[in-house]
C-alpha cells in the first residue's frame, strides 16, 4: 500500500497523525517487509513526534527510541505515526489535540485509547502491525475494542528509551497485531536489556515459579464488578468454556484487593505524570508562548500547550503529592500497590494465568463520556492491575456484541509472556 493509499483509506478513521512520505527498510531480519505504525509518543529520528499534544508542536525527534532502532535492524518498514490521547492520557483518543480516532467497525464510535490510532490502523489493515504504549491498559483496551491482539509485556521487558514518559513506574511499550504469532514476533524483536533504560530486566530477573500446566484462575467477584455489560459477561462465559474445551483447568480464585487497583492507579499515575511533564516548559522543545517574564513563559506555554485532560491530571497529581495529602493519598496508594502485587504473585504460584474481560463494555459513541472523567477512568477497571504489579498481559479478540468487537485478557506472572503466547495461540486457533 502506498502512502497515498493509506491516507485515503484512513480518511474516515483518522488512525494516523502522519503517514511518512518515504517508508523504507533499514535492514534485513525477521521483520523484513513488515509495515509497522508507531504511536506518536515513540521517537523516530528525523520525524515529528508529539504525543498528540500541542505543546510538542514542531518537535522533530533527535534520536531513535531503542524499539525503533531494533525494528529498523530487523527490517521493518515504519509507515507512519499514529494518533493517541495526549501524552497517552485517556481511554478513547478523544483527548488527542488532533481529533479523535474512529473505530473501523463503527465510525460513530471510539477506537479506545490511549493507543487508539495503532489499534485502528491494524484493525483496518492500514499496516501489518503497530506499536503502542500501555500505562494502565492503553494497548489492551483499544486492541479489544478494535478486535485485534494487544500485548503489554512485563515491566522492564522492553526499553522505554525514546518513549515520551507518562508514568514511569507503569509505562511499557508493546505490539498490536492481527494474530498472537505476529505479536510475539514483534515482542521478540523489541524486548531485551538496554543500558539506556536502567529499569530493563534480564531473563534471570524473575525465576519461574511453576511449569506451565494449563491452569487458569478467574477472579469471579472482580469479573462481576458493577458496570460490566451483559454482552461482556455472556462473551466472557463463552470464552471460559472455550478454554475448558481446549483442556484448560478453570479455577475460581479470590483476590480481595484487586478491586482497589483502579483507585491506586488513579493516584500514582497523575502523581508521576505531574512530575514527568514538568519538562515541557517552552524552553527545551516544542511550543513556546511568550509571557511577561521568564516564569510567566512557563505559565503561558503550559496553559496553552496542554489540553484539558493533561491539565486535569497534572493538577490532580500535584494535589496528591502536596504536603498534608501525600500521606493520605500517594503514600497509601503505594502501600496498597505492594499488597495487590503480592496477591497476584501468590496467585501465579497456583495457576498459570488469570482470565478477565479486557473492557467492561464494547466501544462507546464518540462524545458519550465527555465531561465525566470518572466514567472514562472506569473503562480501565480490568487492565490497571497489570501495570500496578508489573505483570505481562494480553488482550485477545473474543467475539462481538452486534458489530462491535470484544476482548478477553490473560495476565501472567512477571516474566511469563511465554504462557500468554501458548494460551493465546490455542484460544485463537493458531
Amino acid at each position, binding site marked *: 500500500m502506498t502512502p497515498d493509499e493509506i491516507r485515503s483509506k484512513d480518511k474516515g478513521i483518522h488512525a494516523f497523525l502522519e503517514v511518512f512520505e518515504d517508508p523504507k527498510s533499514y535492514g534485513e531480519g525477521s521483520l523484513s517487509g513488515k509495515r509497522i505504525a508507531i504511536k506518536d509518543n515513540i521517537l523516530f529520528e528525523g520525524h515529528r513526534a508529539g504525543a498528540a499534544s500541542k505543546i510538542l508542536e514542531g518537535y522533530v525527534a533527535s534520536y531513535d527510541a531503542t524499539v525503533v532502532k531494533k525494528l529498523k535492524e530487523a527490517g521493518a518498514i515504519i509507515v507512519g505515526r499514529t494518533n493517541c490521547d495526549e501524552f497517552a492520557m485517556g481511554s478513547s483518543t478523544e483527548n488527542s489535540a488532533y481529533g479523535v480516532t474512529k473505530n473501523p467497525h463503527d465510525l460513530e464510535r471510539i477506537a479506545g485509547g490511549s493507543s487508539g490510532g495503532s489499534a485502528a490502523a491494524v484493525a483496518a489493515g492500514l499496516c501489518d502491525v503497530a506499536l503502542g504504549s500501555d500505562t494502565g491498559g492503553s494497548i489492551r483496551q483499544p486492541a479489544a475494542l478494535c478486535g485485534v491482539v494487544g500485548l503489554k509485556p512485563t515491566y522492564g521487558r522492553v526499553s522505554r528509551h525514546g518513549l515520551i514518559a507518562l508514568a514511569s513506574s507503569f509505562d511499557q511499550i508493546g505490539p498490536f497485531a492481527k494474530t498472537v504469532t505476529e505479536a510475539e514476533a514483534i515482542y521478540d524483536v523489541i524486548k531485551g536489556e538496554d543500558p539506556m533504560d536502567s529499569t530493563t530486566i534480564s531473563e534471570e530477573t524473575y525465576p519461574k515459579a511453576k511449569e506451565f500446566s494449563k491452569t487458569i484462575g478467574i477472579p469471579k467477584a472482580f469479573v462481576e464488578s458493577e458496570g460490566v455489560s451483559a454482552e461482556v459477561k455472556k462473551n466472557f462465559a463463552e470464552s471460559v468454556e472455550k478454554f475448558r474445551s481446549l483442556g484448560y483447568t478453570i479455577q475460581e480464585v479470590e483476590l480481595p484487593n484487586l478491586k482497589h487497583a483502579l483507585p491506586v492507579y488513579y*493516584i500514582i499515575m497523575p502523581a508521576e505524570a505531574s512530575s514527568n511533564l514538568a519538562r515541557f516548559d517552552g524552553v527545551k522543545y516544542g511550543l513556546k508562548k511568550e509571557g511577561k517574564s521568564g516564569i510567566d513563559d512557563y505559565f503561558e506555554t503550559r496553559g496553552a500547550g496542554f489540553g484539558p485532560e493533561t491539565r486535569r491530571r497534572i*493538577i490532580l497529581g500535584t494535589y496528591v503529592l502536596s504536603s498534608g495529602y501525600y500521606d493520605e493519598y500517594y503514600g497509601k496508594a503505594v502501600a496498597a500497590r505492594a499488597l495487590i*502485587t503480592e496477591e497476584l504473585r501468590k496467585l501465579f504460584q497456583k495457576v498459570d494465568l488469570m482470565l478477565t474481560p479486557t473492557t467492561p463494555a464494547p466501544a462507546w459513541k464518540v462524545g458519550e463520556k465527555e465531561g465525566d472523567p470518572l466514567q472514562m477512568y472506569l473503562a480501565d477497571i480490568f487492565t490497571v492491575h497489570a501495570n500496578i504489579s508489573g505483570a505481562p498481559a494480553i488482550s485477545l479478540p473474543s467475539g462481538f456484541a452486534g458489530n462491535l468487537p470484544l476482548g478477553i485478557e490473560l495476565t501472567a506472572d512477571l516474566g511469563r509472556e511465554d504462557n500468554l503466547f501458548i494460551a493465546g495461540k490455542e484460544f485463537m486457533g493458531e
Partner: protein
Amino acid sequence: MDADKVLKLADLGRIRISREEAEKLSHEFDAILKYVGEVKSVVPAAEGKSPVDFPLRNVMRGDTKGHESGVYSEALLSALPAREGSYVKVKKIL
C-alpha cells in the same frame, strides 16, 4: 476542594487556567478523590508488608566514562524553541 485551591495547585504546576476551569475541576476532583480515597481502607492490611517481590528497584548507573563532550549538543540545541548560538535563550531574570 474549591476553585481557589485548584488555582493554587495549578500555580504550583505552572499552568495558567481560568477561574471557570478551576470551578469545573473542583467538582470533578471531588468525585475523583471520593473514588480514589477508598485506598485509605486498604492500608491497615498493607502495613508492614515487605516489598521484596515488587518489581521496581533502584539501579545505579556505573561511574564510567561518558560520551565525548559536545557530540549530542547540536541535536539537542536544534530542538530549542529559542536559541542564541549554542545557548538556550531565556528572558532576563535580574
